[in-house]
């Protein structure tokens, strides 16, 4: 059935050495539970979950320890049973070397589960199911860790044409999806069936790069069985040409359906949604078995004696996994992810998290420092390699010159940072670094601008308020004066009844009142701190004035210079 599928091409891409065989020789092994689990609360895109446990508490395996912060967030769970030792800041698995709030658990070795209840999603409303998945901590396991419940929404049309399962796995060294498909194809498809129902998708296309024949075979058998059981042909395994980054969601959607989802648009608006095969597996575990996401398959590869895939609990230190694989003595770094897009870890003690598809051990020999950077010769290799059809050398030019507006005109934010341009550049320019720099600068400026906007609004409001107060005061004063005049006029009228002309008296009274007001005003304006001084104070003031005059004289030539 895969032969019938018409495939589309995406522009660009590269074919680096894949280095995948090293880690597919052995089946998935369960990594031993470490002596201490450090579970970061923030493991997905979206809001930072609130800690639900305190130091000293006992937790069960699968117990929620971080509650989703709003809907655009995802819960976090204890990976095994044990005691919460601390809820504190720990080093995060990120290049920045920043720390964030983690729940530190000392496992008790009993591995005692919470009560697990399957969730009958057919009886629940879609919103209930999505809330359930949010609280089960299911996020995209391809590496982007976008909360899955947010994507399990068919969008404005209420149904989709195609659910794409991403088994392409195009990054070199990484094989976690490959082995998962080989060994657990049936479970993945059970998850896909749930997802298809939630999305009302007509068909499910499972895209796998053609360098994984075993995974393709396993998935095809499982798909045939699923189709037979369902009595339709909805599930199709599609072998796609091996070319990095075929596993990028947008690239895979393009290859399988011909649809290009523009930057910033939802793929559901185009009738497609895409999930990683590991995510489908996690959805099944959460819904059919009642098990929240507490572990994942992690490839440990690179500069190691025996690369292998491990099912590792979140919170396991990366160094524990590396130690299982016999790292070579010249290893000098740990990378989370693959060599094209992976993040350099600030140390090997950082924990495995939901985004950890691979722990890649590096060395100077395996990943030599790049040759010296040369000027761009506009050869256009980067443009030929760019899967987003960008002109990377133009974006480089403007990013380097800090002309960020122009960089954005050349669609800087459509860049997916796949690294193809830097990979092919004959001048060895770290192009992606320039884009990251430009993007962060633009974001920073936007934040600054927002702050400035708020400040300006506040200032304008103050001006408005002052103006209003002034007007109110003026109005009050006018009312008072008018009242005063009436009173005066009335008094004069009283007094003038027997004697002089009322006009003169009115005038006199008005003048007197005006003089009175002027005197009062003058008193108010007069600065109080230099009147009524003692002789000593006056002497001091004179001395100070003299000193100031002296200083002014001394400063004169400089001031003139400035002029």
């Amino acid at each position: 059935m895969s032969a019938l599928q018409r495939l589309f091409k995406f522009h660009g891409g590269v074919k680096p050495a894949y280095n995948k065989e090293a880690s597919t020789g052995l089946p998935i092994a369960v990594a031993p539970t470490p002596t201490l689990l450090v579970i970061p609360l923030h493991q997905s895109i979206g809001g930072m979950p609130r800690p639900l446990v305190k130091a000293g508490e006992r937790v069960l395996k699968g117990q929620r320890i971080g509650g989703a912060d709003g809907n655009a967030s995802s819960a976090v769970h204890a990976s095994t049973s044990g005691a919460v030792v601390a809820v504190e800041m720990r080093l995060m698995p990120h290049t920045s070397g920043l720390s964030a709030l983690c729940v530190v658990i000392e496992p008790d070795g009993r591995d005692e589960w919470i009560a697990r209840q399957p969730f009958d999603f057919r009886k629940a409303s879609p919103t209930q199911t999505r809330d359930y998945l949010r609280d089960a901590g299911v996020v995209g396991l391809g590496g982007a860790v976008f909360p899955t419940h947010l994507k399990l929404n068919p969008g404005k049309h209420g149904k989709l044409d195609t659910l794409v399962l991403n088994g392409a796995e195009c990054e070199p060294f990484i094989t976690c999806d490959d082995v998962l498909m080989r060994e657990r194809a049936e479970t993945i498809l059970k998850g896909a069936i749930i997802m298809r129902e939630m999305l009302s998708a007509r068909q499910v296309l499972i895209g796998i790069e053609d360098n994984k024949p075993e995974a393709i075979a396993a998935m095809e058998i499982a798909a045939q069985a699923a189709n037979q059981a369902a009595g339709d042909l909805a599930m199709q395994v599609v072998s796609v040409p091996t070319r990095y980054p075929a596993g990028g969601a947008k690239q895979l959607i393009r290859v399988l359906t011909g649809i290009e989802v523009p930057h910033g648009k939802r793929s559901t608006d185009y009738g497609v949604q895409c999930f990683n095969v590991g995510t489908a597996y996690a959805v099944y575990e959460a819904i059919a078995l009642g098990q929240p996401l507490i572990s994942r398959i992690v490839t440990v590869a690179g500069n190691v004696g025996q690369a292998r895939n491990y099912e590792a609990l979140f919170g396991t230190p990366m160094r524990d996994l590396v130690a299982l694989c016999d790292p070579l003595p010249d290893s000098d770094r740990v990378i989370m992810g693959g060599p094209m897009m992976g993040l350099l870890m600030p140390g090997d003690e950082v924990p495995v998290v939901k985004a950890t598809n691979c722990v890649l051990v590096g060395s100077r020999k395996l990943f030599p420092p790049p040759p010296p950077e040369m000027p761009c010769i506009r050869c256009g290799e980067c443009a030929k390699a760019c899967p987003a059809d960008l002109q990377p050398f133009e974006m480089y030019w403007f990013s380097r010159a800090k002309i960020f507006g122009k960089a954005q005109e050349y669609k800087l934010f459509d860049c997916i940072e796949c690294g193809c341009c830097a990979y092919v550049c004959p001048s060895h320019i770290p192009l992606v670094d320039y884009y990251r720099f430009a993007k962060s600068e633009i974001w920073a400026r936007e934040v600054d601008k927002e702050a400035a906007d708020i400040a300006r609004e506040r200032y304008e409001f103050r001006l408005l308020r002052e103006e209003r107060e002034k007007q109110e005061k003026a109005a009050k004063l006018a009312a008072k004066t008018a009242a005063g005049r009436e009173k005066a006029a009335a008094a004069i009228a009283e007094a003038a009844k027997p004697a002089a002309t009322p006009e003169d008296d009115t005038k006199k009274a008005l003048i007197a009142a005006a003089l009175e007001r002027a005197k009062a005003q003058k008193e108010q304006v007069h600065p109080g701190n230099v009147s009524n001084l003692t002789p000593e104070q006056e002497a001091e003031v004179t001395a100070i004035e003299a000193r100031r005059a002296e200083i002014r004289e001394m400063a004169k030539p400089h001031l003139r210079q400035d002029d």
Partner: protein
Amino acid sequence: MNNSPYFLKPASVQSVMLRVLVALLPGIAAYVWFFGAAILVQIVLASVTALAAEAVMLRLRDKPVMLFLSDGSALVTAWLIALTFPSIAPWWLTVLGTLLAIVVAKHLYGGLGQNPFNPAMVAFALMIVAYPLLMSQWPKVDATDFAGQWEAIFGSRQILDAMTMATPLDALRTVLRDPEQRAMIGGILGSKATFGNVGGRGWEWIATGYFLGGLYLLQQRIITWHMPTAFLATLFVVSGAFALYEPDRFAGPGFQLFTGGAMLAAFFIVTDPVSGATTPRGKLIFAAGVALLTWIIRTFGAYPDGIAFAVLLMNIATPLIDMYTQPPVFGHKDKRGDSP
């Protein structure tokens, strides 16, 4: 330690430039075969001058000398200068041209990757304006007496008349400008001693050598098909149309493509990435523009070949061409243009 990607394709500016030099070898071999070894002397002269000038300029500009000197870009410029100048030009003409190319056209504009104009073409244009006579003394075909050529380059140029002849382009221009001879154009072009089979005796084989080298560059993916195709096709169509319209006034496409610097330009000069257009459509427009201007200057102008001026004129238009030919990015590819 660097960020991702952590490994790079084994590619370098040096390897690109070296392959360009290799691609020039078949044309150079044909040159030596038909016109003698003088061209090799000129290549050495230009190369040494270019490397020395590059080293001095890099030093003055505080750049790592060895790193940039070994990138090969100066050698490519030098070889192109040697191949576009007459092979029996006096030594100082080649040296002066090369100095202008490297010092002025390349380094004063910011060095590798920054020059808005093709350095070799700047050298050619300046020299042909300054020394029109010396730049028009081309060697006679089959006169491969090396001692005489050496003498012409380094010593007295008195024996020069015996060694030089008009290039086929010049010869044709003379004929076409003379109404009496014009009627016999068919017979003149048939004289194989000067005009060979298509593009001039000797010259057509050099052109074939450049063509083969160009195919190698295409196969190595150093250049794309856009520029050579657009250049050759435009020259073919324009010259063909005029030759059909008035055959005794305009030379046909076979001659235009295989004479002068047309093949060298198609694969090695218009394809200079630094000074040329970079977008796929831009490349087509750029190369077609060069071809059209070349044909106009060859046909109506006063200079023996128009490629240098054509290239420089199109270099001026490069930023504009690139700006208007930006290809749509992923997800923005509908006919309305920017937003789907």
